[in-house]
C-alpha cells in the first residue's frame, strides 16, 4: 500500500473517530445559547465599560436576551443602540436618558489652601493615601487627573487650574472616571440636571472657610430659601430637585458654590 493511501486512510479514520467524539460531547454538554445574545452583542459598542451594571457587553447581552435586563441600559450606545436591541427583543425601547459625569469641586489651585509640597507618585490615588498631597481640604479635588486617565472616550480634561472639566458631547456616562476618583467628587447625573452645590466637603463650617474660598459652609441659606429643591446632609447642602432650586437661593449663596451650568 502506498504512503498516499495510508495517510489518506489514517487521516480519515482519525477524523471520523474524533468527529464522533466531538459530536457526542456536543450533544452531551450542549449549552443552549440564545442566538439573540450574539445579535445583541454585535450591536453593543463593545467597550466593556460596565455602565449598564454588568461586567461587560457580553454579560449585558446575555442578561437582555434572558429578559433580566431592559434594553436601554447601555448609556454609551444611547438611544440608537437601545432601539436596535429592543427591536431584536421585540420590545419598545424605553427612553434612554443621557447621563454625564459632573465634577463637584471648584476648589482649584487658586481658590483652595495648600499647606505642603508633595513628593511622591503623581496620581490622585497615591496622593490621597499620603494625606492629600498638601491640599488642606480633605474632600476636594487633588488634580492629578486619575479621572482623565480612566476615560476611554477622551471626554474629561484638566483645566489649567487643576480641576477636571467634562466634555458633555463626548461623555457617554460610563462612570469610569467616577470610579477612579479617590475622593468621590465625580457623580453620574442625567444631562438635563444643571444645578448643583459644587462641593463635597463635610468639614465643619469653620474649617471649610479656612481651607477653601469656594466650599459649602453649611450656612443653610439655600435650604431655607428653597426647601423643596435642597436639603442638608451633615455639613453639606445637596440639591435634591434641580427644578425647584430658586434663583434667589442661588444668588444668596455666600460662597457662590451653588450655581447653574
Amino acid at each position, binding site marked *: 500500500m502506498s*504512503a498516499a493511501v495510508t495517510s489518506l486512510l489514517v487521516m480519515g479514520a482519525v477524523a471520523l473517530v474524533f468527529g464522533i467524539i466531538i*459530536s*457526542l460531547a456536543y450533544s452531551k454538554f450542549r449549552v443552549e445559547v440564545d442566538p439573540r445574545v450574539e445579535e445583541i452583542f454585535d450591536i453593543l459598542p463593545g467597550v466593556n465599560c460596565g455602565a449598564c451594571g454588568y461586567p461587560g457587553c457580553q454579560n449585558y447581552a446575555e442578561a437582555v436576551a434572558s429578559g433580566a435586563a431592559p434594553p436601554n441600559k447601555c448609556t454609551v450606545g444611547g438611544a440608537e443602540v437601545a432601539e436596535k436591541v429592543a427591536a431584536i427583543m421585540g420590545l419598545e425601547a424605553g427612553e434612554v436618558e443621557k447621563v454625564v459625569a459632573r465634577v463637584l469641586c471648584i476648589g482649584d489651585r487658586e481658590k483652595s489652601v495648600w499647606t505642603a509640597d508633595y513628593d511622591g507618585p503623581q496620581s490622585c490615588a497615591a496622593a490621597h493615601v499620603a494625606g492629600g498631597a498638601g491640599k488642606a481640604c480633605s474632600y476636594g479635588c487633588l488634580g492629578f487627573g486619575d479621572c482623565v486617565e480612566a476615560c476611554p472616550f477622551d471626554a474629561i480634561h484638566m483645566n489649567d487650574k487643576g480641576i477636571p472639566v467634562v466634555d458633555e458631547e463626548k461623555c457617554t456616562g460610563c462612570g469610569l472616571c467616577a470610579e477612579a476618583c479617590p475622593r468621590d467628587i465625580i457623580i453620574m447625573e442625567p444631562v438635563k440636571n444643571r444645578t448643583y452645590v459644587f462641593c463635597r466637603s463635610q468639614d465643619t463650617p469653620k474649617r471649610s472657610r479656612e481651607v477653601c474660598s469656594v466650599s459649602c459652609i453649611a450656612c443653610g441659606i439655600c435650604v431655607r430659601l428653597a426647601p423643596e429643591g435642597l436639603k442638608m446632609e451633615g455639613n453639606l447642602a445637596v440639591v435634591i430637585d434641580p427644578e425647584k432650586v430658586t434663583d434667589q437661593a442661588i444668588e444668596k449663596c455666600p460662597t457662590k458654590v451653588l450655581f447653574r451650568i
Partner: protein
Amino acid sequence: MKDSLRMIAVLTFFAVLSGGILGWFNTFTEKRVKENKLRELIASLQSVTGMDPNTDTYKIVRKDKDFELYRIISGTETKAYAVVGEGNGYQDKIRLIFGVKPDFSEIIALKILEEKETPGLGARIEEEGYLKQWKGKAANGSLKLVKTPTENPYEVQAISGATISSTAVLDIVNKSVARAKKLIKEAGK
C-alpha cells in the same frame, strides 16, 4: 442528529482531503529526502574512512538509535569500519562518526555530526584543530584525556576550558569502539 452528522462529515472530509494531498505531496518529496540522507551518509563515510564512492560499497552491520556500524568493502575485502556513536555532552546529545581500520588498530578520522555545546567553548570539538589529532589514535576503547599536547596514540588532548565536552567525545568513542568490537567478534563466530 443532523448537526452531529454534518460535523462528522465535514471534519472527515477535510481530514481525508488533507491525507490525500499530503500523501500525494509525499511521493514527490520522499525520494529526494531519501537521496539527501544517503548522500549525507556517503559523504560522512567518505570523510572518516577514505571510502571511494565509485568503487567501494558499504554494508550496514547494525543500526540502532544511538549506535550505527558500517562495513566499508573494497572489492571483497573489508577496507574499514565506520562507527556512529551518541552520548551526553555538556548541554545536549553529541552525535559523531569515526572510521577505524579493519583490525581496530587505529582510528582513521573523526567527525562530529550533531552537537549543541557552548559556542566558543565546547563547540570547538567541531574545529579542525581538535579533530585532526584523532587520526592514528588507538582504537582500543581505553583512550585517555590529557591537558597537554601529546603524540601518544592512547592519549587525546582536551580543549582548554571545555573539559566536559572533550570528555564526552572521548567517552562516546571509547564506548562505541568497545561495542563495535563486540559486534564484529560475535558476527565472526
